[in-house]
């Protein structure tokens, strides 16, 4: 009844091809944006901003990156942790080496560097397919973490191999890194930055490049026959994906944790981002956000649940239950909707279009 596009006529091709063609969608998005930008920083506590929204946004960006590679281009990658480490360490060296460089430029340059590394480790994809490709990316994962751990140059020869993000401001007076940064400032900066990059990603996947990725994913030999060059498509997927993941890694090290060692980007990190992408929905930008929210929020929710419910359970039992419930929920979601939360959202919207009618 409410969610109908009756009466909305498009008078130009540009309007017809917009990302949110239905007016109700645009209104909802604008409201959501207003709440996110105006209400949340004011109303949410520092704890919420710092430990829930900030990691959610950072991981959402990483999930978008991985979704481009695995969801849109079909190349399974387990090297996310290594690429995040690339982003973190590249931006550290840039920030320390060029203190006058603006922090956003540092992040973007680090992303470009990671893209180059991603292309390098993506070269085997031209020969190896499917699960076997995971090994090339795993080699990247282990090698990169080892490299950043082993060579003191990356950490400015600190005796312990830990890099500490220097305090930097996005606008004069507004620090986003370092301990003095206001959580609200961090959150707003991340929100705008990540939203912008997600918009770029959305446009990329709707463009010719995105369609060539999806063609490779669906049937790469057929794609090659109709004229899509697999070299160009696969390597561009690796490049764009690593760009996003590198920036996410830099943001994680600089804005979220403040200090990081190479071991923080171990294989667990890669699996964590992969879970987000699969649970959220392969091949969907919105899915990356939903998946990131699920994976970031669920453990916190589960560990706080006994306190919320007023039960006093031993800490380790809570932790064990957390594992079990997490595993069970993954299986449950996969049985119920194997295409992820994004598909659930889509089904929801379709039902809403017909509401109040059932079909």
């Amino acid at each position: 009844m409410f969610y109908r596009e009756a009466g909305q006529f498009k008078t130009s091709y540009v309007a017809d091809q917009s990302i949110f063609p239905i007016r109700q969608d645009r209104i909802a998005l604008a409201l959501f944006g207003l709440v996110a930008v105006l209400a949340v920083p004011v109303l949410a506590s520092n704890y919420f901003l710092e430990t829930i929204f900030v990691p959610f946004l950072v991981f959402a960006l990483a999930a978008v990156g991985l979704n481009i590679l695995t969801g849109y281009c079909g190349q399974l990658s387990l090297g996310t942790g290594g690429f995040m480490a690339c982003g973190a360490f590249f931006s550290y060296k840039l920030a320390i080496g060029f203190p006058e460089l603006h922090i956003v430029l540092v992040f973007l340059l680090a992303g470009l560097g990671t893209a180059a590394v991603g292309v390098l480790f993506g070269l085997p994809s031209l020969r190896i397919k499917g699960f076997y490709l995971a090994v090339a990316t795993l080699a990247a994962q282990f090698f990169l973490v080892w490299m950043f751990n082993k060579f003191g140059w990356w950490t400015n020869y600190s005796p312990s191999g830990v890099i500490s993000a220097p305090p930097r401001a996005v606008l004069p007076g507004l620090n986003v890194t370092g301990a003095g940064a206001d959580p609200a400032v961090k959150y707003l900066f991340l929100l705008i930055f990540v939203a912008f990059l997600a918009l770029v990603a959305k446009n990329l996947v709707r463009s010719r490049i995105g369609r060539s990725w999806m063609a490779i994913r669906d049937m790469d030999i057929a794609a090659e026959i109709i004229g899509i060059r697999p070299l160009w498509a696969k390597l561009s997927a690796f490049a764009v994906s690593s760009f996003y993941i590198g920036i996410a890694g830099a943001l994680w090290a600089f804005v979220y944790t403040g200090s990081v060692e190479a071991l923080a980007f171990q294989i667990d990190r890669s699996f964590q981002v992969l879970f987000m992408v699969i649970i959220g929905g392969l091949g969907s930008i919105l899915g990356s956000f939903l998946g990131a929210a699920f994976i970031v929020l669920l453990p916190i929710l589960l560990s706080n649940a006994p306190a919320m419910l007023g039960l006093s359970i031993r800490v380790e039992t809570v932790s064990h239950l957390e594992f079990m419930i997490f595993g069970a929920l993954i299986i449950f979601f996969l049985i119920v909707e194997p295409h992820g939360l994004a598909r659930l959202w889509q089904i929801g919207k379709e039902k809403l279009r017909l509401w109040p009618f059932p079909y």
Partner: protein
Amino acid sequence: MNPTALRFGFWMLAAPLMIAAIGLGIQGLATANSTMFFTWAFFLEVLLAGLLQGVLYSLVALGFVLIFKASGIFNFAQGSMVLFAALTMVGFIEMGLHWTLAFVVTAGVMVILAVVVEKVVLRPMVNQPHIILFMATIGIFYFLDGFGQTLWGSDVKVLDIGITKESIFILEGVFEGGILVNGFDLVAALVGAALVAALAVFFQYTRVGRALRAVADDHQAALSVGIPLKTIWAIVWSVAGIVALVAGIMWGSKAGVQFSLALIALKALPVLILGGFTSIPGAIVGGLIIGAGEQVAEVFFGPLVGGAIQDWFAYMLALAFLLFRPQGLFGERIIERI
């Protein structure tokens, strides 16, 4: 002649030649760069230790191969199955059972686990794409982790079933001082070999084994001949569970039964990839190559770049092989169809 047997035979001949070549290569490097230490005795020691270690990896990789062969699923939960099996066995031993009895009981537990997994996870997800099934096994991984720790606690447990820990020296006549071989590793290698032989016999000569191979070939064809798919899956997961139990005993005796055991699966991945996801001899050969390559590289090339290169070297080695054979050494050739 059977192509697999031909390939096996080829590698059996080529391997000693390659080993000799690598040894000579390192010796040449050592004489050029005098800070490197090389004696043939030490090289053979490292090589032997690597080969034995490789058999231990293959034990874990076998579980993966079994499940992938029969149901096309990459079972991420194999690592936590190894841990769960080892924890359960230690739990029963601590309750007072003799270890052989505990082994039988734990094998039974793993069978029950397999049946439950098949009913709860696999049946609702028939025909889903592989990545979704992979994700479901990740869910099983987390669940088993939490469940195992809830049942048996998080403390480190000692698993001692009387396997010797003594080291022996062999070939003392040929090399000065002899070559050090660890008794435990030898026993583990023998157990692994016995297990592989048993599995080979099982697959080749029993009805169930043939049914398993039929299912691995083509689900629909197997169904149409009357093979009960769901029962076969339960059997495969049970066998994989028992393999996990054996692997858990070996690794648990080596390192103590604790949470980190679940990370063994990561060490088995390059073995799996090198040997091919669908091949049991591939798991063994892959394990031997990865094990030996890893140790030789770590000891002789590691110090040149700072050490601790085992992890990524195994993957790089697997990657190098994959570039020549994209489906692994013994894997089925991927035939692309449009």
